[in-house]
């Protein structure tokens, strides 16, 4: 069979001793740098990219893939341990992962993330191998109208991220959307909300906003009552999940893998939605949704799997079209070009060893990640026993370096401070940061695609319902809306009744 011989070719390339070593080094470096707070996958890869230039093309890309997986997992680790996500995807992990850590279940959360990612990564790798070309054809059917409808669906889902007031969560989403508008307007070049500072012409830096509203706000909260509040539970019982927890993991991991794989294929930013969508679904199917936001295992297992599956399948547009789906993929293309490989539709046929080598190394990278990180979990968890007043100055130093390293823009650091303050005030007012972050990520995509769809349809708004994929997505959004709000309304009625009884 063709696929088998191709995979054999790939594994032959990827499992040479040297390439295995490069993959391992990549995973290790990626994890070690990515685990530093405020340094997300993009910054990690940008920092480590030059190291790979000296190598053979295949080895270099294999190492880079290793760095990528390592950095992703490193990002999830900081999200769980200190509530500091470095990517939009790990923002979701932070919601329940951090709560688990506070309850002494950091080890379980980290192991769940590692195992879920591994499973999702393995499945998605095979999807890439088998379906890459046909899936690309589907992805190209997505135009502006489809993306707009997809983003609408994402927004509807975002409401489920809240575990407090839905109203406040909505307000936070809208605030996030507004913050996403900051920067130069793509269509007219008009600067918006930049306060006359060219430094914000390309918009607010995601890492700055995320580090501010999540990480810094959390540090400030912990500093409120230093004398009488224990920040972290010290008695960590187990590092690994028990049988019961494994059982709980299965469903979310399977669903997350499915969602992530599908969304990752879309080059226009589908992978962003993967972890958010998974969280929504887990909360919806869970028997006790009240647990979400307070340390639900499914709230880590699902989104982490979805995220990794999406990360994997987002290689499809890269490899088959030569088009990067996100900044990380753009870095990968840069690395390929420097190696003399210009990615494009012909890479599969012209350089089969490279193409299948990378696919095989994806799986090997995932395997190494799990082998490497399961033993490291003990070490990461130990970090929590470091007194908090020692930990947070280190966090501040690392995130200053991390944020600055991306664009060498001091204004990004000013934004960190500003959003730290905003995030702190918001958390004092019991408004949660995750919906804000989702809004921030979706805002530009939503507006851009809406306006583009209107231009392409010559101002005909029916384009959203006459295009079948778009119409389907909008119908699905409506269904989700009903599913989310119906129980809310019913609950509200119940509450009213109980009150009048009393």
């Amino acid at each position: 069979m063709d696929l088998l011989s191709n995979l054999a070719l790939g594994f032959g390339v990827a499992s040479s001793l040297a390439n295995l070593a490069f993959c391992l080094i990549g995973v290790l470096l990626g994890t070690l740098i990515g685990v530093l707070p405020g340094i997300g996958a993009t910054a990690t890869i940008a920092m480590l990219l030059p190291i790979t230039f000296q190598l053979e093309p295949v080895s270099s890309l294999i190492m880079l893939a290793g760095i990528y997986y390592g950095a992703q997992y490193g990002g999830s680790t900081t999200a769980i341990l200190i509530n500091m996500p470095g990517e939009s995807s790990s923002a979701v992990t932070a919601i329940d992962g951090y709560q688990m850590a506070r309850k002494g279940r950091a080890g379980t959360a980290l192991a769940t993330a590692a195992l879920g990612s591994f499973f999702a990564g393995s499945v998605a790798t095979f999807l890439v191998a088998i379906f890459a070309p046909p899936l690309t054809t589907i992805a190209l059917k997505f135009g502006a109208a489809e993306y707009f409808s997809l983003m609408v669906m994402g927004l509807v889902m975002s409401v489920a991220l809240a575990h407090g007031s839905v109203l406040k969560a909505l307000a936070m989403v809208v605030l996030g959307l507004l913050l996403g508008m900051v920067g130069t307007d793509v269509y007219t070049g008009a600067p918006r909300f930049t306060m006359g500072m060219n430094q914000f012409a390309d918009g607010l830096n995601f890492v700055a906003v995320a580090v501010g509203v999540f990480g810094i706000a959390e540090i400030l909260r912990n500093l409120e009552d230093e004398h009488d509040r224990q920040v972290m539970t010290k008695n960590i019982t187990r590092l690994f999940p028990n049988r019961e927890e494994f059982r709980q993991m299965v469903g979310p991991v399977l669903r997350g893998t499915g969602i992530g794989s599908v969304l990752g294929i879309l080059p226009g930013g589908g992978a962003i939605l993967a972890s958010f969508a998974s969280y929504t679904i887990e909360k919806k199917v869970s028997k006790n949704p009240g647990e979400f936001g307070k340390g639900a295992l499914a709230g880590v297992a699902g989104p982490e799997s979805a995220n990794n599956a999406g990360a994997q399948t987002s290689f499809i547009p890269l490899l088959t079209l030569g088009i990067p789906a996100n900044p990380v993929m753009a870095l990968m293309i840069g690395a390929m070009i420097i190696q003399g490989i210009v990615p494009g539709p012909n890479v599969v046929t012209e350089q089969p060893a490279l193409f299948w080598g990378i696919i095989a190394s994806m799986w090997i990278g995932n395997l190494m990640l799990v082998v490497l990180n399961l033993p490291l979990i003990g070490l990461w968890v130990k970090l929590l026993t470091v007194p908090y007043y020692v930990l947070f100055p280190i966090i501040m130093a690392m995130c200053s370096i991390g944020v600055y390293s991306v664009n060498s823009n001091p204004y990004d650091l000013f934004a960190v401070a500003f959003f730290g303050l905003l995030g702190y005030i918001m958390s004092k007012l019991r408004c949660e940061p995750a919906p804000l972050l989702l809004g921030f990520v979706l805002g530009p995509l939503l507006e851009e695609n809406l306006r583009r769809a209107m231009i392409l349809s010559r101002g005909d708004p029916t384009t959203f319902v006459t295009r079948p994929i778009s119409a389907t997505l909008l119908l699905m959004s409506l269904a989700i809306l009903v599913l989310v709000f119906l129980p809310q309304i019913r609950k509200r009625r119940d509450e009213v009744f109980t009150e009048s009884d009393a």
Partner: protein
Amino acid sequence: MTASKLLGALFAATILTAPAFAQSYPERQITMVVPFSAGGPTDTVARLVAERMSEDLGQQIVIQNVGGAGGTLGASQVAKAEADGYTVLLHHIGMATSDTLYRNLPYETLDAFEYVGLVTEVPMVVTARQDFEPADFPAFIEYVKANADSLTLANAGIGAASHLCGMLLMQALEAPLVTVPYKGTGPAMTDLLGGQVDIMCDQTTNTTQQIKAGTIKAYAVTTPERLDLFPDLPTAAESGLEAMQFGIWHGIYTPKGTAPEINQRLSESLQKALADEDVAKAMADLGTAPSPAEDATPEALKTKLEEEIARWQPVIEAAGVYAD
């Protein structure tokens, strides 16, 4: 790095202004500012030449990506840097166009820099979706003129190569197409591949692989001569569109006041890097070629910049689009 080098760096950082110092240049690491994010085409060009130049200079050239505001943030950082030869800028045609596109630039383009030389000039190709009707470029011109208001033209954002080329194309054909801007080349190319938009004119760097794979249709190149890469593609000038002759040229600059000896030294090093076979091959893969040695000089770059500022000003003003 050793302690003595560190001391050298300290020393250089503080009292290095005297031109006499130029003789021993370079004594420490040089920072090459690329005003775009890592992994993009300009970054790739920079890393290619920086690697070879490092070998020749005997000092490492590190790339610093200072992206933002169409390259003007990185350029203004270099404009403000010390003129000691340890901060250089690699910028493309945007250096000339931003002079008009941005009405509040924090520096005077022609007054804030010294020149090292031209690096490469990337040709542009007029392309369209795979199933676009016209068979060749003359037919394309006819068709576009006749259907101007129903055709869409993609670009990768204001100031991007595809935006500049699009403006030239529309002015040359006197055909006001429906412009559809994107954020970057990636999404624009995706929509062209998917047939969501009709026409795009972009650098060979971004289009070559797609054209070869037949996923998009190519009509003409913007170079004075046909390209070795696509011998069958006519130049725009062959069909009478002389105005459509341009490329995305890249140049290396230093801050105003940098000693001429230093610029000369960098220029020599650049010429050696551009003569390197590996660099030529890597550039050929991108659909471009290194600039000839006589263009990799301070004088040639200065002339180019002046010419290009004068050339683009009326084009941009006629289009009435600004980036601020």
